[in-house]
């Protein structure tokens, strides 16, 4: 039984990071209807900037965490300004392809740095003995990661519910024309959505980097596993992203915990999200919390 609870705990840890990664993705989709395929690269960039600031520049990790969020905020904003602003009004297919190209460009830029080929791990700054309760153990890094994640998600929720900027972003996602007519600058909101997505991606990246170590392939995979999460959650719902993130983390941990090693299966945790994704697409394509606006064609 303690094995089961151990899986639940690690599922929630992984799931909350998925939730944070998916959050940024949903922000962009919600405001500008763009599928950002390059999201994993922003996650990786955030993690690498945090590492570079902490280890190479010697800044305390809490400060460098915040600096990397700020830097990625501006990185994502400038990406939107340079590449996506001029594609407003183009068919959605070319906008998605631009993000695919963007993914490739950022990949290339990351391969230019040492992070592309080597593995790094953050210096331990928390106690290394795990917290153990009734046979279930969780490391301090994971604990702090989960707490930070939920704090950030709560912060984002507050931002969208209460602040003027957040409300204007929701207005744009609801009806662009109406939003424009009451004086909201829609392109600015798009830029802001990308910037916020970059910020949350950087936070997710730094947390993943602390928990699993810095490996470009792993961080890259987080950007792609976001797709099953957002589809399960319903593409344009922030609550959906959070709930689906945790569900997906649990599914993944249970799959690798109970299926691996039996019937010659291996690495099921990696593939399970995509199988779930295909099943959802076939039977409940608007996800758990999505708006039922998909038309049958």
């Amino acid at each position, binding site marked *: 039984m303690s094995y089961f609870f151990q899986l639940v705990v690690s599922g929630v840890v992984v799931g909350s990071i998925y939730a944070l990664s998916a959050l940024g993705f949903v922000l962009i989709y919600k405001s500008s209807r763009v*599928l950002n395929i390059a999201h994993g690269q922003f996650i990786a960039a955030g993690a690498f900037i945090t590492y570079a600031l902490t280890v190479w520049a010697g800044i305390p990790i809490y400060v460098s965490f915040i600096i990397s969020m700020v830097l990625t905020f501006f990185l994502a904003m400038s990406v939107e300004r340079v*590449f996506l602003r001029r594609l407003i009004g183009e068919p959605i297919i070319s906008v998605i392809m*631009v993000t695919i*190209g963007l993914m*490739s460009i950022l990949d290339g830029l990351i*391969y230019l740095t040492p992070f592309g080929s080597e593995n790094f791990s953050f210096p331990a700054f928390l106690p290394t003995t795990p917290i153990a309760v009734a046979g279930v153990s969780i490391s301090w890094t994971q604990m702090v990661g989960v707490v930070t994640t939920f704090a950030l998600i709560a912060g984002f929720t507050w931002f969208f519910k209460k602040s003027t900027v957040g409300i204007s972003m929701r207005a744009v996602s609801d009806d662009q024309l109406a939003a424009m007519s009451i004086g909201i600058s829609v392109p600015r909101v798009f830029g802001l959505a990308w910037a916020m997505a970059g910020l949350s991606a950087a936070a997710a990246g730094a947390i993943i980097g602390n928990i699993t170590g810095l490996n470009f392939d792993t961080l890259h995979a987080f950007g792609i596993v976001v797709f099953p999460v957002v589809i399960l959650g319903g593409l344009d719902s922030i609550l959906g992203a959070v709930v689906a993130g945790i569900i997906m983390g649990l599914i993944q941990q249970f799959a690798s915990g109970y299926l691996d090693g039996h019937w010659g299966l291996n690495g099921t945790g990696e593939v399970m999200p995509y199988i779930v994704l295909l099943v959802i697409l076939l039977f409940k394509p608007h996800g758990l919390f999505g708006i039922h606006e*998909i038309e049958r064609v």
Partner: protein
Amino acid sequence: MSSNRWLATGNYFTSYQQEQRIFFTSLDRTAMLLFIFGLFIWPFFIHAGNKHMLIIDNILVAVIAVMGLNLVTGFAGLISIGHAAFVGIGAYTIASFARVLGDSHVLLTHAWPLMILLAGGMGAIFGAIVGLPALRLKHLYLAIATLSFQMIFQWVINFMDFFNQGQTISVGRVAWITGQVTRKEHYLFWYYAILVVAVLLGFAVRNLLRTRYGRCLVAVRDNDRAADAMGMHPGFTKVYAFALAGFLAGVAGALHAFLYRGVGVESFTLHHSISYLAMAIVGGLGTLPGSFLGPLAIKVLEMQVEQLSEWASAHLTFAANLATALKPLSFGLVIVLFLMFEPRGIANWWRIVRSYVKLWPFRY
């Protein structure tokens, strides 16, 4: 066409049949036939080494795969981020036969044209399965479905013993009328084999696009409700587009397997899917000449990038992983720049040149 079309000031079609012709003048047809003839005979005059022959063969395989991608993404307007996985399905069809029957079984060495067709069929089946969500969904979701197919494919190959866990599975040398194809003439032999397949499929696709079965793809892309009102079933048309793309990809994969005499998962990863997309975009989505020009341009670019990074790593000390970095960087830049400045691709330049020549001495 009675009068000389090269002197005409515009298109004077009087029936739809005239507009749908493949060759508008006999000069067009002669030029095309001469061009294809040239493709067949140049190896007799110019001796290309195995290294160059392999590159040319690679381009032709990519042409076949990109024709498929162009059908589904260009003509039917459905983004596929998993095209390399469909190519992989074709290659692994051959590989599974080699695995079960041994790599020099008579089916592989003598009945290889049949095996290529079978691989295409497998590709079509998987294409249709992945396209099934199209019955309910629009393109955004389909892009994600193809992406997840790519991931599932990579996992299945990487973790199953039957597929040698992604390591190379070798495929034997094939036989021809003159006996077994030797090591020396391997690439030349496959140049001709792939060229024949590419020309046949090129004409097949060109003709398909003139019939109702090809035109329905474009109709569904442009306006699916109008297409529905005209009596087409948009959902089934999309599934059918995926199946067609899967067929061409499967054929390309089988040719890839025979050409390299082995199949490994590293040729069918997400990066390859993206480079197929880059080829289709650079060539020009929704144009048939684009499917030929795109792979050519991208492969040439790839070669240049490789040379550049070789030169750089010889002359610069820090350029350790410049080779891995420059490739995705240049691909990404090419995709983004083409989408931003020339969304209709190189095929559009070809069109401009043609109309310039046609209208000369008047300005284009």
